[in-house]
């Protein structure tokens, strides 16, 4: 058994750590300040362009994109190391192109869709969003109501989608819709590529979320699509959607490991300096317990992430592992960030330190892509079935 990353991935990890330290963290105070005055935790178009240019120059573009499209086609195990560092910064920037839709598109596109959607996405020319949840149908896709009906040679979509990220800037939406109600989630749900300028598709409202984030609600009203908009096979949209969600869940878990590690590092640096009642905070047993427990939790989550990625790269099913990891990593990060904030006292409550924003981001991730309770249910059900 080998617990060491191959040398080239260790060097990649180092490169990404340097990128985060030299290019992302310097932008963080400004992002926190923007969030504090209520205009959102965003980066400007110029800042994004500069980061994109640096990512390209360093070869950090398309890390898991197919080699045929200029990507590096790296395995999941390499991305675990990368995303832990990317997660540490509160600057809303992921190394492009964002992996989840890439994975789903790569698994489903036909030749025409490849050149029209996937390739420009990998090149960074387009923004891809996904529309799954609906008012009243989040974790339970069987409750999905948005319908797609084939009329002649056109698909007609009707329904509402909610909690959609990037709807304000997306060029297209991978939109999940029911094509056969009787079949339910297995066999009755299909995926469609909906261009954002399609008549009948509109952004109904912007929904402000925690930490200066926002999602959107979409309305599809007699939204007519050519037959070629069907992504993958009719009725078989669920499996590639799960692949997409698994990619994001693994990514989120590793971001959470990065966040938890940073929160712990901050506490470990601060606790010996802070004196209360005649001794350093780090001399108090409670704080020592926090540190030991945090280190243990992070270590466990990291090993789980390595193992899950390793299985994924072997082509094994990771359904149970992904659920265990996503639940564990988000929950442990929540606990560790909270304790670090507690250790920092009033300073930990300020919007000058990144801790509160780390808490916001982790709080969102305990819900996004499946709440903790759903993932635990998946694990338990899987075990009880035997």
């Amino acid at each position, binding site marked *: 058994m080998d617990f060491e990353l191959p*040398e*080239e991935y*260790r*060097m*990649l990890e180092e*490169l990404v750590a*340097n*990128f985060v330290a030299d290019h992302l963290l310097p932008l963080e105070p400004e992002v926190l300040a923007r969030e504090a005055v209520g205009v959102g935790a965003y980066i400007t178009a110029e800042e994004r362009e500069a980061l994109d240019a640096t990512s390209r*120059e*360093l*070869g*950090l573009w398309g*890390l898991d994109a197919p080699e045929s499209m200029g990507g*590096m086609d790296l395995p999941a195990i390499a991305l675990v190391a990368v995303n832990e560092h990317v997660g540490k910064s509160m600057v809303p920037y992921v190394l492009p192109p964002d992996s989840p839709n890439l994975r789903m598109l790569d698994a489903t596109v036909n030749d025409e869709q490849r050149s029209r959607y996937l390739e420009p996405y990998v090149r960074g020319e387009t923004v891809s969003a996904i529309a799954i949840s609906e008012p009243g149908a989040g974790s339970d896709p069987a409750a999905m109501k948005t319908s797609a009906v084939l009329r002649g040679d056109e698909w007609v979509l009707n329904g509402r989608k909610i909690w959609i990220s990037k709807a304000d800037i997306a060029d297209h939406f991978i939109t999940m819709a029911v094509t056969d109600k009787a079949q339910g989630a297995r066999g009755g749900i299909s995926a469609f590529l909906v261009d954002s300028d399609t008549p009948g598709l509109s952004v109904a409202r912007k929904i402000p979320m925690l930490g200066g984030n926002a999602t959107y609600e979409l309305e599809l009203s007699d939204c007519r699509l050519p037959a070629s908009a069907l992504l993958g096979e009719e009725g078989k949209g669920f499996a590639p959607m799960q692949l997409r969600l698994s990619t994001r869940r693994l990514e989120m878990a590793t971001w959470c490991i990065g966040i938890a590690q940073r929160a712990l590092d901050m506490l470990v640096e601060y606790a010996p300096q802070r004196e209360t009642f005649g001794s350093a905070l780090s001399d108090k047993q409670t704080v020592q317990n926090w540190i030991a427990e945090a280190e243990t939790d992070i270590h466990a989550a990291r090993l789980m992430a390595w193992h899950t990625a390793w299985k994924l790269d072997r082509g094994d099913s990771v359904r149970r592992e992904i659920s265990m990891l996503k639940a564990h990593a988000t929950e442990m990060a929540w606990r560790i960030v909270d304790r670090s904030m507690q250790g920092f006292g009033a300073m930990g409550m300020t919007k000058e330190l990144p801790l509160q924003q780390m808490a916001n981001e982790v709080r969102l991730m305990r819900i996004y892509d499946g709440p903790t309770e759903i993932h635990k249910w998946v694990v338990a059900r899987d075990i009880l079935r035997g």
Partner: protein
Amino acid sequence: MKVLVAVKRVVDYNVKVRAKADGSDVDLNNVKMAINPFCEIAVEEAVRLKEAGTATEVVAVSIGDKACQEQIRTALALGADRGIQVETEGAVEPLVVAKLLKGVIEKEQPQLVILGKQSIDGDNNQTGQMLGALTNMAQGTFASEVAIDGDKVNVTREVDGGLQTVSLNLPAIVTTDLRLNEPRYASLPNIMKAKKKPLDVHTPADLGVEPKAHLTTLKVEPPAERQAGIMVESVEQLVDKLKNEAKVIS
């Protein structure tokens, strides 16, 4: 022109080192290791010479156990063409390093040898100078600028009180100071390419050297802890304390 660059595996400069409890050495257990920052500057300088068309080949050499191949790979990812490891065990002192490097120079016949002025672990600052003496090659130490000029190299040196420029006949030895350049990151495509670059392993015997220790480490201990500072009431009090307590002004 062939350039030979020496790289050393050391504790990463961000690590707060600790002495072992028995005082025998620095505790390297679970500690992140990296290429010595001065060596990284040396690699960068060599790669820039190659990019400028002045150098034709850059060879990176490291002396140590198998682990130091990681630092050779880093040098290859930064742009060196091939690597050489001289396999040794345990700590190797500057004179032995200089003798081994002399052996590599005899094999490789480089026109220019670039080394860090010192490594941040031992801070000896001896290897480059010893190598100059052993090989009879000209040396330009503490370089903040290196310019090849025909069969000469002009080296601007950071010396006490200012800068000094020396002109050396090639082949020559240069040791780098901090301000010579700012090393680049190894980009991912170059990291991947480095995997395929050749890396040869030599033993000291191949180079006709018997590593012999002349130095013994007696004790490693942490520096005395700094006393807490105090706030002074006035400039007069500050001057008084500097004069009479710290005795740093008179």
